[in-house]
């Protein structure tokens, strides 16, 4: 069995309560950090661990903490990004629902490290029931003296606020999240200034993903160095993977980074393989934004090496033959999945979720969706394919925030690897528009 850092106790009955969580060794890391360490030492452990942002960007968390400006007399904030909305990703939902105290313990340690006295957990509004779970857990922790004034007699104060979102994928982008937290529209800010200098209420702010922060209790208990021994190279520690699509056992799995894609996909410990009687067609490895891979590039890289579940191995080959680990949204497609339809579906998602601030994203995402809709519904023409590639190129890199890239990549990669399928939709509109029709080389599967 692989080592578990986040989910070791997740199946213990009653783990959502303070008492059971405490019995499993919970909150010892808070005691250790607050009683025996300085904030700088906690930051140092985070740096040593090499843990990278688990929200999708993969930026080293300790380094991000190191950028936090610390002007005299200005409050600093820690904001936890629990706005999980990336299609294919549901790990934070699972983690917060099952073991809320883990995140709270992580928040206390991280807030202490950063010198924040008021920290926020921004949870997407759709998960109101999870918000209630978190609020209950916070009340418990407060009653036990782990939150509030003078925590464990140390003189350190911390208040934890759970903030609900209102329904907007874009608020997963850190500056949009901060705008939303200030009670505004979720329009991402222009950067610089970065949140580390001017974030929430124009004060220095760190925004971290739920999973990233939840690693902190283990890192404090066992040391950053111990954490860094798990995984491979710069992909240290474990990662929660949300597995969905055409597999035997969809769900959330904690893997040690470095497990092979082959093993993750096929072993009974994880996905259990593609559903019975079907075979693998494509994979989106890190949430809907990352490039889709065709069957021949999933378990092996273009160079013929085993593809591993690491930041580096998944992106091996760049976008030509690789993809990204992203947020760990592992969506598996078997041969019954229509890539054109799915690309249109994702494109519709980004069109719907664009905030509308900058012109390439506002206009480009809608345009791509319309063209894809036309192709999917049998009204496409051959030049539409190149048009899509061109629009995606014109959006990519030219927008205020990464939503533009996220909208462009799935379209560009689907055409890169499944151009035949797009062509077939255009040349065979009659067949392609049959319900459930899927291109299978020369034949159609209906």
């Amino acid at each position, binding site marked *: 069995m692989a080592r578990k850092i986040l989910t070791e106790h997740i199946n213990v009955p009653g783990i959502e309560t303070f008492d059971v969580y405490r019995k499993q060794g919970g909150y010892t890391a808070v005691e250790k950090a607050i009683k025996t360490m300085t904030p700088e030492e906690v930051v140092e452990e985070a740096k040593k661990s090499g843990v990278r942002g688990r929200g999708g960007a993969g930026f080293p968390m300790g380094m991000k903490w190191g950028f936090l400006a610390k002007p005299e007399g200005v409050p600093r904030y820690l904001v936890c990004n629990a706005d999980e909305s990336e299609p294919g990703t549901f790990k934070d939902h699972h983690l917060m629902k099952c073991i809320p105290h883990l995140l709270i313990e992580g928040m206390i340690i991280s807030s202490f490290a950063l010198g924040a006295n008021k920290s926020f957990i921004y949870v997407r509004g759709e998960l109101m029931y999870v918000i209630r779970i978190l609020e209950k857990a916070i009340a418990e922790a407060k009653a036990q003296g782990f939150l509030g004034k003078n925590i464990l007699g140390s003189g350190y104060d911390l208040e934890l606020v759970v903030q609900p979102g209102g329904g907007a994928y874009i608020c997963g982008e850190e500056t949009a999240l901060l705008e939303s937290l200030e009670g505004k529209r979720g329009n991402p800010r222009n950067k610089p200034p970065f949140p580390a200098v001017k974030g929430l209420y124009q004060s220095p702010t760190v925004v971290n993903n739920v999973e990233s922060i939840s690693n902190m209790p283990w890192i404090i208990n066992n040391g950053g160095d111990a954490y860094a021994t798990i995984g491979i190279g710069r992909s240290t520690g474990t990662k929660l993977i949300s597995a969905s699509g055409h597999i035997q056992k969809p769900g959330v799995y904690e893997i040690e980074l470095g497990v092979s894609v082959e093993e993750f996909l096929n072993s009974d410990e994880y996905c259990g393989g593609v559903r019975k009687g079907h075979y693998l067609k494509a994979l989106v490895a890190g949430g809907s934004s990352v490039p889709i891979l065709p069957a021949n590039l999933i378990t092996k890289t273009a160079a013929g090496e085993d593809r591993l579940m690491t930041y580096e191995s998944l992106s091996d080959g760049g976008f030509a033959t690789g993809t990204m680990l992203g947020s760990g949204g592992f969506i598996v497609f078997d041969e019954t999945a229509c890539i054109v339809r799915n690309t249109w579906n994702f494109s519709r998602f980004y069109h719907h979720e664009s905030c509308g601030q900058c*012109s390439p994203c*506002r*206009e480009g995402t809608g*345009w791509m969706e319309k063209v894809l809709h036309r192709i999917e519904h049998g009204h496409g023409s051959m030049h539409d394919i190149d048009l899509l590639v061109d629009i995606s190129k014109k959006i990519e890199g*030219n927008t205020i925030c990464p939503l533009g890239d996220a909208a462009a990549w799935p379209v560009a990669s689907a055409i890169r690897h499944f151009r035949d399928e797009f062509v077939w939709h255009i040349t065979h509109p009659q067949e392609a528009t049959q319900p459930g029709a899927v291109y299978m080389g020369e034949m159609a599967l209906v």
Partner: protein
Amino acid sequence: MEEVKPQLLKITFDGIEVEVEPGTTIMQAARKIAEADDSQGHLVPPAMCYYKPLPVSGGKCRACLVRVSAGSAKDPRPMPKLVPSCITQVQDGMVVENTTNPAVLDTRKSIVEFLLINHPLDCPICDQAGECHLQDFAFEHGSVKTRYEEERRTFDKIDIGPHVQLHMTRCILCYRCVYTADQITEGRVHGVMNRGDASEISTYIEKAIDNDFSGNVIDVCPVGALTDKTFRFKNRVWFTKPEDAHRDCDKCCGKVTLWYRGDEVIRVTARKNTWGEVNDFICNTCRFEKKQTSDWVLDGPTKVKRSSVISANKYRKDLVAKPDFALKLAATQFKPIDDSRPYTTDEETIRHQSIENNDKANHRSLLANNN
């Protein structure tokens, strides 16, 4: 004590060096170059959302994206993405490529395309025509064709009061009118509703935008989304004569431009600078109620430098300087034809000549396209 002057920063913009104060943006540095030398006006990146008198504006339309090929003298690495010149601050030793970079011009072309896909082509009946920044932008940086085949978006019409006409279909969501209302009026009542390409400028519930300075949203609007109801369908702007004028006003600076048809004042606007920006906003009394010459002291004809066809033959003049990379490339790569060669019947030579003629034809068609 002697005042300590801040150390000036040096930036190289399209090969031209200029020194600016710390905190200056790339856009302002480029404008400084053009202000010193009128012939360099074409170097300045276009701005559809940025508006200097509104400090929070900018960064949204992406029309002014430029390439930073060296971040600073200290860190000369290029920036990985194109950056919005309107909000990116100059670093000492920065090197910026605008009209000299094909990727920048190509991206700009696509920004025009993006802004136009949902913009109605109703210029013939739009009061903004002739002083529309989107017209200028499309003309100077766009392509003659669109690849957009889908339906354009439309909005339900709303009435925002007796002075200002809102045409939401023409809006490019620059947010300038929102920032103007925030900055110069108490209690903004309009804003951006909805999101994505359904975003619209609206009051949500039908409500008049009613305050002494509400008319300024007309002047800051780069397109015909917010126009003057009292000027509606009165005249094409290029047939009007602008005169600067002033009056003593207890609410505003009282410095305006009167737009004449014959002896009749048919419109009053605030004065705009070289970059089409209003520095001194005016009140609604000056704008909507003082339409007699006798209300004003005339200061002489308005100098219109840019951003308006009223500048007479502006487009023709600009054609020559139109920054087009393909044209520049062709000009440098095109070799003069040697006409002194003897007549030949040798097939290989004829084939060679015909290739050369093709090149010449291509060059011509390139020119035609660009005109």
